């Protein structure tokens, strides 16, 4: 157990953890939104993220982006990447809603059924990107599909540089971008849900769908809205991911999704701010834990912390807010 290392570089570890957690947080938002409104763990959300990364990869490959392009180009490709990823992820989320969840909602199926459907969908999406498309298109576009199951690299779009160093803690440009974008996006979403009329409609559907309709809220539109919003957040996360880590694979969503969902639960699922807080907290816990022990204990530490937190706060750190309180 290496506490010396932890405390010796506590600042650095914290910064690392925050930038790690920011990605979790963005994905967690999608889980929380859908859960908050439909009481449904959208297990397929991790694949919404995965599709986003493939979209970014596809875009950059199509334009033949090389490592470290000039800054002007880099910005263009990032913006384009954001748009493409948001469209791809948002579209996937919407498609999932339409194809799988809507028929179930029509039948008023209980949550467990949604969960299993979501798991099935998730498998299907992973296999489509990892197996079917490679078989169909692997010859034509090997760089996108050829090794989708193992790993696909992307160009480095912005070189990682240390921006400044304070108190023995260096912060890189990419860490800063990731962290700030995550916070800004989450703040925008929070504002949208809590301060706008649409947002109020979303919360109303979350708490009492039938009465929401009696107040003039169009439930279908709200549900589409949350899936699209969650998808866009996942798309944004996909772009940040691509920028920071520069690779993807068909199964990339699984572990990240699991962590993001854990983050959402940690913060209080259904609670947007909770998702952010949970994500950052989880990131820090993982980095601290991996420093003290070895990295292969990371997940154990994350889950143990989850259990401990839930024992003291059974509805997560911030509790639920979108969701229905118990009557």
């Amino acid at each position, binding site marked *: 157990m290496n506490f010396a*290392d932890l405390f*010796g*570089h506590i600042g*650095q*570890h914290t910064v*690392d*953890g925050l*930038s*790690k957690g920011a*990605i979790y947080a963005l994905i967690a938002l999608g889980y929380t939104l859908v859960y908050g409104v439909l009481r449904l763990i959208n297990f397929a959300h991790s694949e919404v993220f995965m599709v986003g990364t493939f979209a970014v990869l596809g875009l950059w490959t199509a334009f033949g982006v090389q*490592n470290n392009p000039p800054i002007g180009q880099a910005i263009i490709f990032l913006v384009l990447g954001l748009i493409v990823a948001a469209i791809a992820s948002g579209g996937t989320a919407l498609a999932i809603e339409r194809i799988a969840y809507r028929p179930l909602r029509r039948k008023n199926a209980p949550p467990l059924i949604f969960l299993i459907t979501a798991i099935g969908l998730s498998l299907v999406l992973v296999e489509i990107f990892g197996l079917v498309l490679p078989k169909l298109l692997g010859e034509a576009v090997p*760089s996108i599909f050829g*090794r989708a*199951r*193992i*790993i*696909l*690299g*992307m*160009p*480095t779009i912005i*070189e*990682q540089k*240390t921006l400044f160093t304070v108190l023995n803690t260096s912060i*890189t440009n*990419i860490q800063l971008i990731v962290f700030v974008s995550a916070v800004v996006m989450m703040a925008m979403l929070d504002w949208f849900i809590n301060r706008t009329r649409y947002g109020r409609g979303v919360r109303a559907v979350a708490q009492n769908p039938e009465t929401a309709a009696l107040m003039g809220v169009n439930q279908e539109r709200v549900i589409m809205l949350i899936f699209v919003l969650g998808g866009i957040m996942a798309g944004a996360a996909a772009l940040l991911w691509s920028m920071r*880590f*520069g*690779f993807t*694979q068909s*199964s*990339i969503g*699984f*572990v*990240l999704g699991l962590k993001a969902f854990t983050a959402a639960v940690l913060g209080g699922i259904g609670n947007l701010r909770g998702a952010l807080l949970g994500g950052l907290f989880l990131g820090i816990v*993982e*980095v601290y834990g*991996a*420093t003290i022990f*070895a*990295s*292969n204990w*990371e*997940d154990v530490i994350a889950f143990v912390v989850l259990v401990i937190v839930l024992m003291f706060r059974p509805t997560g750190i911030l509790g639920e807010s979108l969701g229905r309180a118990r009557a």
Partner: protein
Amino acid sequence: GCQDAGGSGDNTASGDCGGKIAIFGAFTGDNAGLVLPSLNGAKLAIKQHNDANADCQIEMVEFDTQGDPAQATPVANQVAGDTSFLGVIGGHFSGESDATMPVYEAAGLVMVAPSATRTDLTAKGNKSFFRVVGNDGTQAGAVATYLKSQNAQRVFLIDDASAYGAGITAELTKNLGATVAASDKIQERQSQFEATISKIKAANADFVFYGGYTREAAPLVRQMRGAGVTAKFIGPDGLYDPAFPAGASGGAEGSIITCPCLPADKAGGTFTADYQAAYGQAPGSYGAEGFDAAQIFVDAFKDGKKTRAEILEYVKNYDKQGVSKYIKFAENGDVDPSRVVIWSYEIKGTAFEPLQELKLS
């Protein structure tokens, strides 16, 4: 796909020559990429034989285990129970080999493994398990030699806690002694390596060895470079895979990969060319081993061996130059370590440039 490699199956076992063997391994699933070259190599050997000897047809039946011991065992039961099978090529992974060894041994079936490298597989007093590949101890020894030759002072060891990665890294730890600066273990499917990288930095390492596969290694080396770590990166044959440099998008430049496989131009006979002609790509890792494993059975059948016992006996005493190395088994089933050829390669762009053959100690 379970098509037989050449020949019409029925009349084979009946003739004076020929017979039926099984090959098992992860032919589908996530890890298939590592094993398919070996399958292709084996198929090539059988096909070459069958094409040349119309009167002596060998049938090879493929059993896909996805590398999972739990799937390999019913397969083993099937093969062991079907007396028409006279030999087995496999397993490809150490775990499935370990799981099925007792079954095949009980049936008196000989196993020739092309790529199961864990050291202790041959240390259990098995009587029918042989491998045409050097074990992890041999490769780790070669890596250690290389590191010494490079004057490594502070080596940082990372493994993925898999049977293969952890095994080879543990062997290397034994070999390196004091030059190991520190170590870390990551987990499969991990994709963010902040903690590991800060440990590498803290250890001020000049070499980083990673025991494991591409999926984790590519992002790891890329993030290392992104974070400004300049230590040289070394990996074993698990990374001898074009996906590694490609997945790291330039991050793997200059990394050293060791592999108990010969560079294309050094492989014996016409194997490399034949393989290239048959499958349109270079043999990759273990392609030659797969070929050699199959060739042993081809030789046995050609020699007129017709029962499991005869073939087991034949393999035990096999003594011949193969395409990957000179093959002669020690009592425990290992090939002679001194005959194992291990090469180092350097990554340039997306290519593996052969550097040198690594001699043991």
